[in-house]
């Protein structure tokens, strides 16, 4: 167990360095950031600023400095807002995480019962209908789902606000949008995990000794299917945050995703780097927690 933890933590740090390298590369890819900060200045002034910001140093030195600063949460000042980038990013993170959490809760509430039902009643009409929903759901762009829901519920029937994030009513459409994007992914995982265990010997034994079907499913099958479900949901976190970015753009939600998209289009690199870094760290940490939990929850690995 502890050997595993040490190896896993080591990999965590290596991946963190890799993440920093990619984040660092975003600015390098743009060519000359000074031209963006002061587009009209003469070359002499540019050179002075380049010197002052340390952009004239060799790339490896710049990278080491970037990592050292990033570790302290210093990504420089936003080109556009003229204030430190990191606090601007952190300020908006809770909104994005809230949206993602609502969507996950919705998706779990729908996907788990439906997934279980279609695994247990395999090849019935309900199972086929669920499969159709999964296929359709995975073939729709999440932002289009959002616009279609907006068209129906906000424009046509005027039941909910078109956009924003300032009341409970305004939270519904974005959450349902991201939830609708997430549900098919989860449903597929739940169904296939349940199918894996449902015909195993111990489930058959439980059934044979007369345990009611409901208890067989919940206590014997679901419990053992839960582990892969949790793992895959943890690994889908990056995809979910990507979906959140698009959903925020559709509904004009003041979250991290919308800030980042705007900053990317304005080439405001300090904010872009801080935001991409924070999101990647969230994902890396989530993966670490899932891996450790997996080992902890799985007795066949824990007891070895």
């Amino acid at each position, binding site marked *: 167990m502890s050997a595993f933890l040490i190896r896993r933590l080591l*990999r965590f740090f*290596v*991946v963190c360095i*890799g*993440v920093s*390298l*990619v984040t660092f590369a*975003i*600015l390098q*890819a*743009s060519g000359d950031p000074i031209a963006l900060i002061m587009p009209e200045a003469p070359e002499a002034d540019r050179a002075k600023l380049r010197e002052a910001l340390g952009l004239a140093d060799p790339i490896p030195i710049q990278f080491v400095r970037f990592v050292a600063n990033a570790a302290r949460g210093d990504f420089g000042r936003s080109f556009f807002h003229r204030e430190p980038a990191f606090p601007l990013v952190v300020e908006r993170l809770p909104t994005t995480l809230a949206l993602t959490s609502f969507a996950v809760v919705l998706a779990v509430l729908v996907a788990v019962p439906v997934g279980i039902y279609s695994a247990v009643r395999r090849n019935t009409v309900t199972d086929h209908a669920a499969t159709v929903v999964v*296929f*359709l759901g*995975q*073939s*729709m*762009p*999440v*932002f*289009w789902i959002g*616009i*279609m829901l*907006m*068209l129906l519920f906000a*424009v046509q029937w005027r039941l909910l606000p078109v956009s924003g994030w300032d009341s409970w009513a305004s939270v519904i459409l974005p959450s349902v949008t991201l939830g609708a994007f997430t549900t*098919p*992914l989860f449903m*597929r*995982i739940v169904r*296939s995990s349940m199918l894996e265990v449902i015909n195993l010997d111990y489930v058959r034994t439980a059934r044979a000794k007369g345990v009611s079907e409901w208890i067989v499913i919940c206590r014997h099958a679901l419990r053992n299917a839960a582990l892969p479900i949790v*793992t*895959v949901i943890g*690994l*889908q976190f*990056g*995809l979910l*945050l*990507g979906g959140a*970015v*698009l959903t925020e*753009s*559709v509904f004009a939600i003041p979250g991290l*995703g919308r800030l*980042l*998209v705007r900053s*990317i*289009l304005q*080439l405001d*690199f300090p904010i*872009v780097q801080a*935001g*991409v870094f924070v*999101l*990647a760290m969230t*994902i*890396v940490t989530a*993966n670490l927690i899932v*891996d450790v939990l997996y080992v902890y929850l799985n007795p066949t690995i824990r007891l070895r």
Partner: protein
Amino acid sequence: MAVTVSRDAPAYDAPVRVASGSRAWRRFAFNPAALTGVLILLIVVGAALAAPWVAPHDPAKQSLLRRFTPPVWQAGGNAAYPLGTDQVGRDVLSRLIHGARISLLVGVSAVVVSVLLGVTAGLVSGFMGGKVDTIIGTIVDVNLSFPQILLALAFVAALGPSLVTIIVVIGLTGWERYVRVVRGEVMALREKEFVEAARAIGVSRPRIIFRHVLPNTVSSIVVLSTLQVAQAILTEAGLSFLGVGSGRAYPTWGQMISLGRDFVTVAWWLPTLPGLAILLTVLAINLVGDRLRDALDPRAV
């Protein structure tokens, strides 16, 4: 490499094995869902290839007198513009037909980039093992640590949006699946008698890879890349929705949705129809890919 579970649809996780050609083909051909998929794809590909000849109008031709003409089945519709016109009077049908070109071109080319990179990395990783394997595994882990759409958006914006940039960047975000599949296949095959026999008679390493190992991974790669084309089309749509398309000059479905959203209250068809085009195309590819996997699986009856 500890990452064994894909972040995308679990469709990619299922193992793929080769079944004999004709039986696989029969299994594929007699499936109504797959046939529907093929039919839709034929129409979309045909429309994309023949766009300048089948599109009823010039997709860029504006006509302010005809702004917001609704589709033909609605009151005020005009048979000359069957799917209506947009905010500057351009024909929606013609723009959809031309938009198919970008979606398919980007989707297929990005997957080619992913396949080249991923298969090479997977072969190297599986054959060399040890340090090289660890390094490639770490790169895959790092790649999986970003919300792909955001990373792609950042790099496309930084490098300057162009069709080539978009294709390469989308390709770079989707290659790790091939590493996992090919690496696993190589590791399993490495110990097989026929590879060992080849090595024993002095066949060189590249020759073993290209003549003996690679052919065995082909069907897995075909299935994975079919499904990835669907993903790449969705990513491209997402990028052009967010505003870094391949330029304003040529219509793309994502960009049509993005522009149409602003007129959602007056012209429902503007954001709706391009989304339906994406849905149909991606659904068709997913149906074909899914069926292809089942058909190529020798264990299925």
